């Protein structure tokens, strides 16, 4: 009986040590990632990268005069059957603005800041992205606004981490329509619609603004 208890204690201690080790490793990895993600280069790229940074060939087709909308309206859009690095839909060729509450946010591996927006009226979540400034090449259209939008968040709100953080800030955002092939991401709409990149970001309340 005692031996059994001891085994259980040893097993628990081993698990605790393992967990602690894992946490330390994760923390070390995260801190390194923050530093690394600020560095451009290898993370900037991919099939849809130019769409994400408004530096694609069809960037000039985008109407930057923002159209007011809501998460609910975007959620109703039908996703294209095949997503290519070409601006094939009106959603992709238009700048949209909406008001919502940021539930959580984090910095992705490619340096983008992911914001999970929440519509109180319709209880819907949606993802929007602030691009990594280091990935905005000279071809990127409206580059300055994108950088300003990102700075509007980072300058007032708590530091962005790779881990999700609760934020609870009411914002008005402006961004270009984007279809994400991956719809399993946290907070993603069912149709994969996102605003990516964001070209405007304004805090209504929160992050010290009341």
């Amino acid at each position: 009986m005692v031996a059994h208890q001891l085994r259980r204690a040893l097993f628990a201690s081993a698990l605790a040590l393992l967990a602690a080790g894992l946490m330390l490793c994760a923390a070390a990895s995260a801190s390194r990632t923050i530093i690394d993600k600020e560095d451009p280069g290898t993370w900037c790229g991919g099939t849809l990268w130019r769409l994400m940074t408004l530096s694609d060939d069809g960037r000039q087709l985008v109407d930057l005069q923002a159209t007011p909308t809501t998460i609910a309206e975007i959620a109703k859009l039908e996703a294209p059957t095949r997503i290519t690095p070409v601006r094939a839909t009106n959603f992709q060729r238009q700048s949209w603005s909406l008001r919502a509450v940021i539930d959580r946010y984090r910095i992705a591996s490619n340096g983008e800041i992911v914001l999970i927006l929440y519509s109180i009226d319709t209880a819907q979540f949606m993802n929007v992205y602030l691009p990594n400034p280091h990935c905005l090449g000279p071809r990127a259209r409206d580059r300055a606004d994108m950088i300003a939008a990102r700075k509007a968040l980072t300058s007032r709100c708590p530091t962005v981490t790779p881990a999700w953080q609760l934020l609870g800030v009411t914002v008005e955002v402006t961004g270009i329509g984007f279809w994400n092939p991956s719809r399993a991401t946290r907070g993603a709409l069912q149709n994969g619609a996102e605003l990516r990149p964001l070209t405007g970001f304004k805090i209504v309340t929160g992050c010290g603004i009341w």
Partner: protein
Amino acid sequence: MNTAATPRQRRWLAGRLSRRAVDPAVAAKRGVQFSLLVLLALLVAVVGNGLFATYNLYRSAEDRYVRVAFPLQTLTRDVLFRMSEEESAVRGYMITSDRRSLGPYMVGRDAVLSDLRQLRALVRNRPSLAARLQDVQSQVRGLHGFYDRLIVFVADSELGGSKLGPVRAAREALDGEKRSRKFRNTAFLMQKDIEQFVQTTRDQQRATYNRTIATLSVAGLLALAVAAAMLFRVPERLRRLYAAEQETRREAEQGANAARALEHVSEAVLLVDGDGSIRFWNAGAEQLFGVAPTTAVGRRAAVVVPEYDRLVDAAARGDRFVPLRIEDVERWVAPALSTFEGGSVLAVRDATAGYVLERARADFVTTASHELRTPLTTVYGAARTLSARHDQLSGEQTGQLLVMIEQESEHLVQIVDQLLVSAQLDRGALHLDESEVDVRALCSAVIESARLRAAAGREIAFDAPPAATTVRCDESLLRQVLVNLVENALKYSLNGGRIEVRVLNESASVQIEVEDEGLGIPPAEQERIFEKFYRLDAAMTRGVGGSGLGLYISREIVTQMGGSLSVRSVPEVGSTFTVTLPRRV
């Protein structure tokens, strides 16, 4: 000849006559006009003030209270109420995580934002309220953000089953209490501000009302006073005005009548003002002085009538006749002067005829005295001679004296008869004792009588139809006429000469002509010799006497018999007097 007064004269006369009446009328008119203007101004002030006050009251009540103050109160209360509901809804959601609990929050949030928009518009021009609303808005925005934060934290559990969000929400909920309290305090302050605003509005309304009532009362009382004053004074003024107008009209009518009468006066009438200028000049003056009214009026009297000063002096002395030479013709005028304040009226009557008659009368007295005295002296001398020396006179001498007395007495009787007939003619009392008269026989008898009295060598021829020539008339008076004519022929034939009497028997009349070869009569005097007391040789320079009544009486007698007496004469050649008597059945 223009006998009407000129317009300038009429205006001057009317102005003088009505000057006293116009001034009170003008004064009365101005007084009434002023009173009416004051009354009108007061009424306009009352109406204007009433309208302005009504508009102010309406605006203050409608704009400030109904449209501003009341909505302010309502909206503020609504915001408070909605925010309270929102808080409850969020709390309920936090507890139940049931989205249905958020219904009041979502409805209230939009309603509150709408209320705030309306409040912003209402307090736009009211800085104190706007500042307070700014605080409310800021706190509402903060609360909404806070509520959104709590809601999203609660909803966060839906993403991945994490309870971190709800726990965080529960922890921060305490902070919401502080925020809500602060908002309510601010909202209450705003409510107080609005209540103060409402009170101020009410005070302003009351002040406007009181001011309006006071202004209207004062203006109304003044208008009432003016109206009452006019009620008492205007009728009296109108009565005076009417009376003055009546008096003016009477005076004007009198003046016009006077002017009209003066126009028709035969005398020359001059109205001269104090400066010596002629103001009125009637037709008589134009006729006498030969100057038209348009020329005379306005000029100095002494210029228009050179003898003016002499006439005025003569009138002042009371001279009956003043000699005046007008256009080289001597006239005798009788001036009369009336002076009044500011001028004088000189009336000048042409008295030439009267003067001549006066002079003729004077001459008659002289002549008649002489005519009567001559035979009387003869009679007186003969009678004294007979009386004193009757014993020394021979019978022949006595006879001659007696004949002389008889003849001179007849002469005296003749003169007296002429005077009597003249007097009868003057009275119109000459009686004709008509009968069928044989003119031929009558003329013959007169001639025979004249021949007896005529000087030796004087020839009096008589030419008449052989048959009797009768005419119906007064024989005695006709005899007197014929005697006059024959004796005149003898008297004025100083150098002798033939005298012829002719009787002409016409079908409708009988003419008797007495022709002489005497002095003759100048053409200018051939009519005047038939005037009363007129004598051809009044000064008796040629020793021819007479009463000056003979021809006058003769013509009057013949005229009353229905006939006529005329003369044809050439000076120094002779004269022919013709008596024409109509035959009457």
